[in-house]
């Protein structure tokens, strides 16, 4: 057996040659030199709206040499929630995941702090509203980047003709396109009178009282308008208070003017109510109007999106933001932060808002006056007041200001709508409050 020995001279020569080759070799940057990035975006209701996000991300990926894969995950059947839960359990999955309102807090321990992305964006695009902070921040930590895609206000969408005819209210004059609202007289009492008039006219307001989000959001805005907290900011159960009693009495009166089947409504029922032409108002983002534009143009051209009525404690509108969050186990956090910064630039936001027909809402102050909302129609200007451009109402979420993890339970279990329905169906006030107190105490688990 022969054995080849490497001499000391040969070893030094080989090492020197290899080092020289490495130093002098040209730097070849591959097509995907900056690694891979997987993104789970929310699958948009509006046909074609996903394309805007895809185009922006692909353009960024090409420039940054990152190999990107995007999955659009629908919220139908809660597939997005199942994905969040599964990835949190497996500690593996997408690098970036779109999380609806309550979910950043629910997964707070598993999310990468995004302060270095959000804080510069706030400086650049303006302050975000209080609800975005309430849902997106845990202490000083930003749990996600406020996403434009999927974020929405569920304000009133009224029929111009029916409101004029039955309630004597000119919603266009109250909320003129291109100008500040003149809605001082648009109070919860005026709302009640209008609901009664429209019900008598055979076109009741289509407000649900079920357990799905549309119903919960509407009732939540009325609770806030009456200052009716059920759990306070410190997490104390405070449901037995006069403001809650007052809002329950108010809702009892209102429910008498709503469709009798409203307790069985889901999130599609109000949309169908508007499109069928059976009602004078629903509480929804412009998706219902967009469907009407396609299926019932004569209805769509009479729709006007505007603000909530003002109550004894203020004017509140339900705002449901989405967040783009990065898992702490993500393998490419730098690339994730870079693409989220790109997606939050004014030009990108403008493209996404336009692609969604005005449905998507950026949380940043300076981005609420884009031309899409002013120009969309028919009728032209129908969405002008949708993004709350004059900060005329406080953007809020049902069950706030309870600590988010408790509020999520109140929201998911639809405790507020259940209270209203129980009281409306004849349960004594104190019994309803006692029932709610029991439920709320159960939500304090940690």
């Amino acid at each position, binding site marked *: 057996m022969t054995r080849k020995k490497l001499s000391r001279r040969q070893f030094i020569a080989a090492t020197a040659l290899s080092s020289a080759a490495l130093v002098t070799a040209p730097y070849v940057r591959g097509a995907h030199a900056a690694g891979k990035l997987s993104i789970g975006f929310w699958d948009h209701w509006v046909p074609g709206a996903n394309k805007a996000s895809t185009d922006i991300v692909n353009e960024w990926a090409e420039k940054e040499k990152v190999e990107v894969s995007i999955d659009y995950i629908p919220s139908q059947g*809660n597939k997005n*929630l*199942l994905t969040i*839960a599964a990835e949190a*359990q497996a500690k593996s999955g997408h690098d970036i995941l779109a999380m609806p309102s*309550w*979910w950043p807090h*629910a997964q707070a*321990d598993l999310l990468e702090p995004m302060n270095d992305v959000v804080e510069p964006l706030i400086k650049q695009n303006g302050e975000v509203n209080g609800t975005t902070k309430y849902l997106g921040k845990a202490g000083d930590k930003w749990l996600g980047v406020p996403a434009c895609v999927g974020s929405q206000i569920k304000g009133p969408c009224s029929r111009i003709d029916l409101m004029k005819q039955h309630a004597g209210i000119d919603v266009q004059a109250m909320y003129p396109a291109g100008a500040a609202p003149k809605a001082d007289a648009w109070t919860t009492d005026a709302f009640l009178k209008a609901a009664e008039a429209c019900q008598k006219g055979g076109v009741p307001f289509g407000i649900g009282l*079920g*357990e*799905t989000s549309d119903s919960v959001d509407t009732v939540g805005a009325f609770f806030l308008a009456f200052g009716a907290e059920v759990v306070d900011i410190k997490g104390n159960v405070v449901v037995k208070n006069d403001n809650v009693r007052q809002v329950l009495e108010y809702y009892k009166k209102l429910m008498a003017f709503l*469709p*009798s*089947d*409203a*307790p*069985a*409504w*889901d999130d599609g*029922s109000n949309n*169908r*109510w508007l499109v*069928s032409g*059976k009602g004078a108002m629903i509480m929804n983002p412009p998706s219902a109007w967009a469907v009407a534009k396609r299926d019932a143009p004569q209805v769509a051209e009479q729709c006007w999106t505007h603000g909530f009525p003002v109550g004894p404690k203020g004017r509140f509108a339900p705002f449901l933001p989405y967040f783009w969050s990065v898992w702490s186990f993500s393998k490419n956090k730098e690339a994730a932060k870079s693409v989220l910064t790109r997606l939050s630039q004014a030009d990108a936001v403008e493209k996404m808002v336009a692609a969604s027909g005005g449905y998507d809402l950026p949380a940043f102050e300076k981005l609420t006056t884009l031309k899409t909302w002013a120009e969309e129609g028919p009728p032209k200007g129908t969405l002008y007041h949708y993004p709350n451009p004059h900060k005329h109402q406080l953007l809020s979420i049902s069950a706030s200001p309870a600590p988010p*993890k408790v509020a*999520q*339970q109140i929201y*998911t*279990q639809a405790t507020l709508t*259940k209270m209203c*329905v*129980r009281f409306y169906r004849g349960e004594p006030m104190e019994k309803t409050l006692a*029932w709610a107190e*029991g*439920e709320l105490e*159960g939500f304090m*688990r*940690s």
Partner: protein
Amino acid sequence: MADVAIERSATAPRTVRKRASLRTALKRKSTAAFLMTLPLILLIALLVIYPAFYSLHLATLNKSMQRFIGLGNFQFLFKRETFWLVVEQSCIFAITAVVFKALIGFIVAHVVHNIPAKGQRKWRGMLLVPWVIPPAMSTLAWLWLFDPSYSAFNYLLAGVGVDRIPWTGETGWARFSVILVNIWFGAPFFMIMYLAALKSVPDQLYEAAAIDGANWWQRIWYVTLPMMRNIIAITTLFSLIVTFANFDIVRILTAGGPLDRTHMFATWAFRIGIEGGDIPLGASVSLFMVPILAIAAVFILRDINKRGNEA
């Protein structure tokens, strides 16, 4: 050399014996059967046994899943009014639905059994349709029939001057609706099982009963039912378990509403665990029925074994 030779001669028979025993083992029917079912066993282990144990583990954690709390979740549930409402509803739903499914299945099986052989296959096929359509799909059709505002049933009722019915809006009607759809979906399963059992009852028994002067009811009571006992027990047990665990029908039709009055264990567990983000509590809700159903299964199956041995 001699040592080596001895060593060789000692290992050779052992290898031969090993090969022979392996061959014998492979030739054995039970081994072949085991090997053929092995992929399925592995699949079940992966998709059923592992998740089952994992959910047991989850049920012992606190809400943030960072601390072991033993049976704390169950103690918490026992104090909740809504939990006992769900227990009550699940029992009402499962027992009512299974009783009606069994009754309808039994009657229809007799009707089909008495149809002349020529046309029977056609009827059997048609009656199985509700069972072969995926329930998530057929329930969507039912949802439209029961829709709060545009119910097709209410449209028909309005045509004959009857007031509209809040199919999914009122507690009583909502419970009725979900049970009705479950019966519609599950009755064909009972029908086909009972039909198979009926076909295996020897005609001589009926002839003997007829000679003894037994009437229609006596033939059913003393011949048909005793001969079908085992199949009735197994079908009932199987259906009871599946009905208790029902998710899709309730989820699609009422999502547990109104006022939680149609929630079942599975739908409430989903609401708490997935929608509400409290996975350990959701796991506890879904596991609550396991010991009760397991005890029921042991009793029913033991009874079947006893009867099998008597036979």
